[in-house]
């Protein structure tokens, strides 16, 4: 049977047919290989660039080397703020499970001399923090710490030593509000599409930016160009041995010279330290150009907290406290605090009246004393009969200025408020400046706008006749109340009422009184040295350009009357005798701003004490504003503080030995030190009745 089949089986034919089928397999093989090679062509020839980029992204990790920020100097080249190179030990949260943290904590505690318990707490806190946030496990790492981390980079790729230049404010809270502070750019800032620190501008998480003060305002000058390390990493992110492919050195930011004078600043700080409520402001300026020599706001803060401890739980707590403090230490009172200027304002009224011809230098006598306005008797602390403008300034005669205000009239008065640019920002080179509130009719109108509008709306909807009549009456009444009255006028004329001015506005104003009407823009930038910015663009040395300076009309005669008056305030038995500096011809004006009605007592309702000044009389080189909050009278609280600062300044600039009793100012403050030797200052309270 098998042979039968064998006979029917043609071996040659079988091989021929098999050969044909083999040919089919052969063609199939060719088709398959053609497909594979086509795919290779697609991957390696057509699309290779994209894959190359991805391979590079895989193997190369770019580690930024942050550039040091520029140094901030005072006007004489003394360092105020600097950066020092330092390293933080960082634990990356990426790919680290929470369950692994205790082991890592043990490891770090053992090798990096970190307190185990402290670390455990930090890890515990971090569990609730943002995922992207890596944990700083040690700041200011030592060289041996860094060596250990680098040596174990292969085993523990999540632990790295990162360069983090520390911003160092050498004098702690000295000039803190002017200098500002730095911090990490926030996710919100990054997201803002057109913000200065947006992603589009090349900022990324972890970048340090100026957050406040000069640091913020001149961030572009101070920020350097970051460098980077390109290192070879494997799939687990471990940096390979000798894996550094390229290192681009960072370029430090440009140094910046401020107009601040460290000596003046220190003197001002010392005086601010003695303010009884712990709140107040001091600012000194060169009236000839607007250069700020000192700027103090109290209470203050230590900017080092933000730059060095912002990531530690303790530092976070300190920062939280700063934000929550009701006295607002983070608030720069010099430019953000609005206060009624009190009698310092009388000089504006005087300049206005003299210019407008309300009074003349020859004929300036006006009645002083209490005044009856409608059914209200406005008291005056002074009763000088009919003083001249000079005496009225010297003794701060309220009654005189009530009547002078009434004579001047609101239109002309308002005109001079505007000429001095009150109610407008001075344009100082610091962020967050407030415009203040000027004592003009518009301000009062605005106060009544809301209730009037509300009543009008009610009227539209009301149907009841009686109610409508009531509303109509109410609107009429409100409109009437919104009108400028004589009472408003007399209050505005001597610096009370609806007036919120910032110390910096008063400083610029007193500078103009000193120099005869030139209002320079107060500023802190002296010059920025040449260098490159964070984008690598070259910049030549740049100094401040005052583009917003302006003048108020003030004839020499009028100027002389004002200066003589201010000189008298200090040197002729006026209200500011406490500011007298032998040989320096200090001119000034006191001010006492009422905070609340007289019957309320307590610290927070005490009057604010102002003193504005300039010196010397004939060739002014320095002007000042001192505000002591809730302390009492300007002549008693702020004039002696000014005196101490000016005395120090005068002696240093004239090469005289320092005053021997300088230590006196530190204990107890000027308010409790009535007996200044040599009769340079009059006993405070000598003429308390004339201080408003």
């Amino acid at each position, binding site marked *: 049977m098998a042979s039968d089949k064998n006979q029917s089986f043609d*071996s040659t034919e079988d091989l021929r*047919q098999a050969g044909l089928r*083999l040919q089919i397999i052969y063609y199939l093989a060719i088709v398959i290989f053609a497909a594979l090679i086509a795919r290779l062509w697609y991957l*390696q020839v057509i699309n290779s660039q994209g*894959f190359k980029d991805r391979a590079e992204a*895989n193997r190369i990790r770019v580690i930024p080397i942050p550039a040091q920020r520029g140094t901030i100097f005072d006007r004489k080249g003394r360092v105020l703020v600097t950066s020092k190179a330092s390293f933080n030990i960082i634990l990356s949260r990426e790919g680290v499970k929470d369950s692994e943290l205790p082991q890592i904590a043990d490891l770090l505690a053992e090798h990096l001399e970190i307190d185990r318990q402290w670390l455990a707490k930090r890890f515990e806190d971090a569990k609730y923090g943002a995922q992207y946030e890596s944990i700083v496990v040690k700041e200011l790492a030592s060289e041996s710490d860094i060596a250990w981390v680098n040596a174990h980079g292969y085993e523990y790729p999540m632990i790295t030593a990162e360069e983090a230049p520390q911003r160092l404010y050498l004098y702690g809270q000295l000039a803190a509000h002017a200098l500002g502070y730095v911090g990490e750019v926030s996710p919100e800032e990054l997201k803002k599409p057109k913000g200065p620190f947006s992603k589009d501008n090349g900022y990324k998480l972890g970048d340090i930016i100026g957050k406040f003060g000069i640091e913020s305002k001149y961030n572009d000058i101070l920020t350097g160009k970051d460098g980077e390390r390109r290192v070879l990493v494997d799939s687990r992110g471990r940096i*390979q041995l000798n894996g550094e492919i390229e290192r681009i050195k960072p370029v430090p930011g440009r140094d910046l010279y401020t107009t601040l004078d460290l000596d003046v600043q220190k003197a001002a700080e010392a005086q601010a330290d003695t303010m009884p409520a712990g709140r107040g402001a001091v600012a000194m300026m060169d009236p000839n150009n607007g250069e700020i020599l000192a700027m103090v706001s109290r209470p203050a803060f230590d900017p080092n907290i933000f730059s060095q401890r912002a990531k530690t739980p303790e530092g976070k707590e300190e920062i939280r406290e700063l934000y929550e403090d009701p006295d607002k230490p983070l608030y720069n009172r010099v430019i953000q605090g609005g206060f009624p200027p009190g009698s310092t304002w009388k000089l504006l009224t005087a300049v206005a009246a003299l210019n407008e011809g309300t009074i003349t230098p020859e004929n300036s006598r006006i009645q002083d004393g209490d005044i009856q306005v409608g059914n209200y008797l406005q008291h005056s602390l002074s009763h000088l009969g009919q003083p001249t403008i000079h005496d009225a300034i010297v003794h701060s005669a309220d009654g005189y200025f009530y009547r002078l205000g009434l004579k001047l009239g609101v239109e002309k008065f308002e005109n001079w408020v505007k000429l001095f640019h009150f109610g407008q920002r001075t344009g100082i080179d610091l962020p967050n400046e407030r415009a203040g509130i000027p004592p003009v009719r518009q301000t009062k109108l605005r106060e009544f706008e809301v209730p009037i509008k509300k009543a009008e709306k009610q009227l539209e909807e009301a149907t009841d006749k009686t109610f409508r009549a009531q509303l109509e009456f109410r609107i009429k009444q409100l409109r009437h109340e919104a009108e400028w009255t004589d009472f408003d006028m007399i209050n505005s004329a001597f610096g009370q009422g609806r007036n919120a001015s910032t110390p910096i506005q008063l400083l610029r104003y007193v500078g103009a009184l000193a120099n005869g009407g030139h209002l320079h823009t107060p500023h802190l930038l002296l010059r920025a040295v040449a260098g490159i910015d964070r984008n690598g663009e070259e910049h030549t040395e740049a100094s401040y350009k005052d583009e917003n300076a302006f003048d108020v009309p003030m004839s020499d005669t009028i100027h002389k009357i004002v200066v003589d008056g201010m000189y008298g305030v200090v040197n002729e038995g006026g209200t500011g005798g406490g500011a007298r500096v032998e040989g320096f011809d200090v001119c000034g004006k006191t001010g006492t701003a009422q905070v609340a009605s007289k019957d309320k007592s307590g610290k927070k309702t005490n009057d604010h004490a102002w003193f504005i000044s300039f010196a010397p009389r004939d060739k002014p080189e320095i002007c000042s504003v001192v505000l002591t909050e809730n302390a009492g009278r300007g002549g008693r609280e702020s004039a002696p503080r000014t005196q101490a600062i000016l005395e120090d300044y005068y002696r240093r600039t004239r090469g005289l030995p320092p005053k021997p009793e300088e230590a006196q100012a530190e204990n107890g403050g000027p308010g409790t030190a009535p007996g200044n030797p040599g009769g340079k200052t009059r006993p405070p309270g000598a003429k308390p009745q004339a201080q408003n």
Partner: protein
Amino acid sequence: MFNANRRYMADFDWALLSLAVGLAAFGVLEIWSVTTTHGTATGFWRKQLVGVGIGLVVMFLTTRFDYRRVVNAAPYLYGVGIALLLLVFTPLGKVVNGNRSWLELGSFSFQPSEMAKIFTLMLLAYYLAGVRKRPLDLRTVVVTVGIWALPTVLVFLENDTGSALSYTSFLAAMLFLAGVRWSWVAAALVAVVIAVIVAAPRIKNCESYKCERVKSVYWPDLAQKRFRYQNEQAEIAVGSGAVLGKGPRGSTQGSLGFLPEVHNDFIFAVASEEWGFIGSSLSLTTYLIIIARLIQIARRSRERVGLLLVAGLAALLLYHVTVNVGMVLRLLPIMGIPLPLMSSGSTSVVATCFGLGLAISVRLRRFVN
């Protein structure tokens, strides 16, 4: 003897040998390159060199024997193969990458399925050559499938789907060549198409790792990221090689660990990364030439057994290269299939050399009957 020797030397398929040795050497070079540049796994290329050496010896020995005598031993070898496959399920077996396909004997370990593959192929050649019918009847087909099924099921149970499918490659080729009716061939093709159509939606909704591997090639959006990773890194490796490649020891994808299993199943990715399109297409062409050469040997064989044996080997080689390179190039799902001659792994190299030895043996004896 001298005459015989001279004839042996003259008829020996030196071309096939040199192509095979060339690929094996290229493989060793790439294994060396990828495991030593940034890593310290220096053992692999030495092992591979030894494997290639053993493979060449096995190849020469095989060519010395008349392939008909070797094939006659196929039933016994098949038995040995099955026994080895069963041993895998004993404590001697070792699980590597989820596949229970390794035997460990002391310090020596190998994959029985690689050997059993050739033995099964030989038995199929032996059996089908004896069936002197054209077209094949149902009974023959059933017996053939039976011979195939036993080891295939065992390999499948080892969880080595790729290898199990490789058995199917030569089964299909040998049945086709031995004379299955065209209608059956058509039916089989239709069945495959229907199977694909039926399976596709199921795979989309399935989340086993095998399904994920399929999805990450054909429906990447549906696949989990961790399964796509290997495909994507392989693509990056190949693509970043561009036309000229990154040069020897220039691989970063492979040597820095972005591509797992780089020295064995993904060696072609590294070769493509370091030698670019020039190198990858040249090595692929070399494989094609070897396959074409095998097909030529099969065609010139004067008898059924030689033809089926060599054609089966060609099909097996074609399958391995297609599936391995296909998975590297993200055309096919990832399966644990080595690239013959190049991938690290002695068993595979030795088995391939044995197969090539058989083919050379067939060619040597093409004139004698």
